């Protein structure tokens, strides 16, 4: 009986040890890095921003997990950890997003969140991530206020804020000697539109002293009907019409204003318009000056990484080329990948804590398809990057809108320096700018 009991004990112990070994092996092989990816999957921002950005994320995550990205992004997943994305719809307003962010951290147990197009959502979720001491990357929203009004330890933005978009437009006009004595403006009546309007006007005050503002229109977000605004533009013709409209609003405005000849009489100047070019096609007027919120899409620089990105995105999206939203998502995920791998290396190969992750991303730099991203503003939490502006032309042979006369601007030329608020920089005639 005793011998039988001893044998039984040995058998049980051996079985348990073998089971533990088998259990441990798959756990280590299948360890994952969970990333919450938040963007508009429904509503008016879905078509232009949310869905292309998520499409970009899907293509990139698949390439990362397969270890197919070029060096230095060629480790499988994030440092060998399989990336497990959790996609969340940004629609529903800031209160909902605060709750969704808490759910991502507490219930979904994500290791990091990358998200947010809306400036209102960014302003709402950033303090929550900070309070929870969890890692957050804001990938798209434009308001400069995030890191100019308070400092963060766990929150980062891996793309330039909106000041760059309008300063580069104003510098382009000056560099090309476009005559600007009078200005008309059409911007949406919410934070993005108001901030863009103010940045452009402040930049123009420095570069075109004496230029007068005429029609200053602020249609509501999602207006769709612009007949009255177009009449107001035609009633007070100016040298240029500036607009930060985007998505469906911009498409509707271009269709309606184009039909009434606005851009034949006034120079169109658009701050965030690259994403409407594939859809509008030949309905996009020739000669419109536009930016893409970075050197994105048709404005992107030639590089092996950019070629690879176009290829990966195109194969996953029926041959479409990436525009600003997927580019911004890509530079966020590339930055996150390098930060995770750097933090893991410093952590003995183990998954990093939010503090280790934040330390790795703070003040870092990396190559993206749109050029070098440098986290130099907001105590190393806010990126700057180069940008570019060009002019539209319908290429009948290629059956697509192309951009000509492209001018590139170094990051330090069109972004404020560290420790200076955007408004102060603009009002002070761009002190420290390196063009």
């Amino acid at each position, binding site marked *: 009986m005793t011998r039988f009991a001893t044998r039984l004990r040995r058998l049980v112990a051996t079985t348990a040890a073998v089971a533990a070994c088998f259990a441990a092996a798959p756990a280590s092989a299948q360890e994952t890095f969970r990333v919450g990816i938040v963007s508009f999957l429904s509503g008016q921002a879905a078509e232009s921003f949310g869905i292309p950005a998520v499409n970009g994320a899907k293509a990139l995550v698949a390439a990362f997990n397969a270890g197919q990205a070029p060096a230095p992004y060629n480790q499988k997943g994030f440092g060998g950890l399989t990336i497990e994305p959790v996609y969340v719809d940004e629609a529903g307003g800031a209160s909902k997003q605060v709750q969704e962010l808490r759910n991502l951290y507490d219930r979904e147990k994500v290791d990091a969140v990358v998200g947010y197009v809306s400036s209102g959502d960014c302003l709402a979720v950033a303090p929550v991530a900070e309070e929870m001491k969890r890692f957050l990357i804001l990938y798209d929203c434009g308001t400069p206020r995030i890191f100019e009004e308070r400092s963060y330890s766990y929150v980062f933005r891996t793309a330039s804020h909106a000041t760059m978009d309008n300063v580069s437009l104003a510098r382009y006009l000056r560099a090309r000697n476009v005559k600007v004595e009078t200005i008309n403006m059409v911007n949406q009546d919410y934070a993005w539109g108001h901030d863009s309007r103010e940045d452009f006007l402040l930049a123009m005050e420095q570069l075109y002293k004496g230029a007068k503002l005429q029609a200053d229109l602020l249609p509501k977000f999602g207006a*769709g*009907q612009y*007949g009255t605004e177009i009449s*107001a533009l035609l*009633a007070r013709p100016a040298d240029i019409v500036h607009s930060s409209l985007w998505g469906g609003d911009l498409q509707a405005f271009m269709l309606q204003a184009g039909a009434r000849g606005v851009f034949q009489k006034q120079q169109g100047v658009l701050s965030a318009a690259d994403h409407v070019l594939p859809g509008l096609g030949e*309905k996009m007027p020739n000669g419109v000056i536009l930016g893409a919120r970075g050197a994105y899409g048709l404005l992107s620089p030639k590089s092996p990484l950019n070629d690879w990105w176009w290829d990966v995105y195109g194969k996953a999206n029926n041959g479409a080329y990436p525009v600003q939203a997927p580019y911004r998502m890509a530079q966020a995920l590339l930055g996150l990948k390098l930060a995770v791998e750097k933090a893991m290396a410093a952590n003995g190969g183990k998954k990093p804590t939010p503090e280790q992750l934040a330390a790795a991303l703070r003040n870092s730099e990396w190559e993206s398809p749109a050029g070098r991203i440098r986290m130099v503003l907001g105590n190393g939490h806010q990126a700057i990057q180069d940008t570019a502006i060009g002019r539209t032309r319908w290429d009948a042979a290629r059956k697509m809108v192309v951009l000509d006369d492209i001018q590139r601007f170094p990051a330090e030329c069109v972004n404020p320096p560290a420790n200076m608020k955007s408004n102060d920089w603009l009002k002070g005639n761009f002190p420290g700018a390196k063009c």
Partner: protein
Amino acid sequence: MLLTILIDGVTYASWLFIVALGLTLVFGVLKILNIAHGSFYALGAYAAASFVGWGATLQIAPAFSLVAMLLAAVAVAAIMAPLTERGLLRVFYGRDEVLLVLVTYALFLILEDVTKLVWGANPYYVSEPYQLLGNVQVGAQSYVGYDLALVAVAVACGLAVWWGLNRTRSGKIVLAVIHSPEIAASMGVNVSRVYTFAFMLGVFLAALGGALTAPMISVQPGVSVGVIIVSFAVVIIGGLGSIEGAAIGALIVGLARALAVHTFPAVELFSIYVAMAVVLIFRPEGLFQRMQARKI
């Protein structure tokens, strides 16, 4: 300047009236504040995009695109109205009106996703009909003929609905149901059929509004939101359930907005709701809604 404000205000009001007319008709007959009206507007826009696209594929004359838009609105009404009214709303008749509002809101959210499932998230462009009627020069302004033609369409829709309700036997039956469904039913009126017909007409008008708007915009997710908010403002100003009220409400909103954009653009959105507040201060039931005794 005054002429420009007038033209801009009237063209905007025309578009708005076509949509608001359907909303107020459904409320008048079924007593339902139909938030899903915006979704039917969006479906009309998507259907028009598809129909016009098919017409182009079959190389049918460009003028056919105007007919295709009308057919699209008819198709949306013929499919969606019976499904919604008989399949969903009928279950809730006799329940609290607030519950019905919530039901239509739920339907609105569902249809948002349905449109994405059917048409995807990419935008549709059907701008060819927008250029069909050329441009009209009025002073320094060049107006698109299509925009001005909307005024005629809106007037035709308003007159047709008014005439149908007030000058035909079927219209009298509908009015009887509006007055008292119970008494109308006791007199042999098939109230259920009247409800379906009125709802179908309401859906048709929403879809027509969407179909007519499709050439001016890119049709994409989210187009249903803006129109429903401003349509509510129109029917509240005019009085819920009143056709004349919808017409005057649309004109007030259109002209207030045009005046604001041309003189003080910062208050464009505010101007619509100021107009609504002023009307409601003096006429809490709306301009054309009579005070009604409450049934106990």
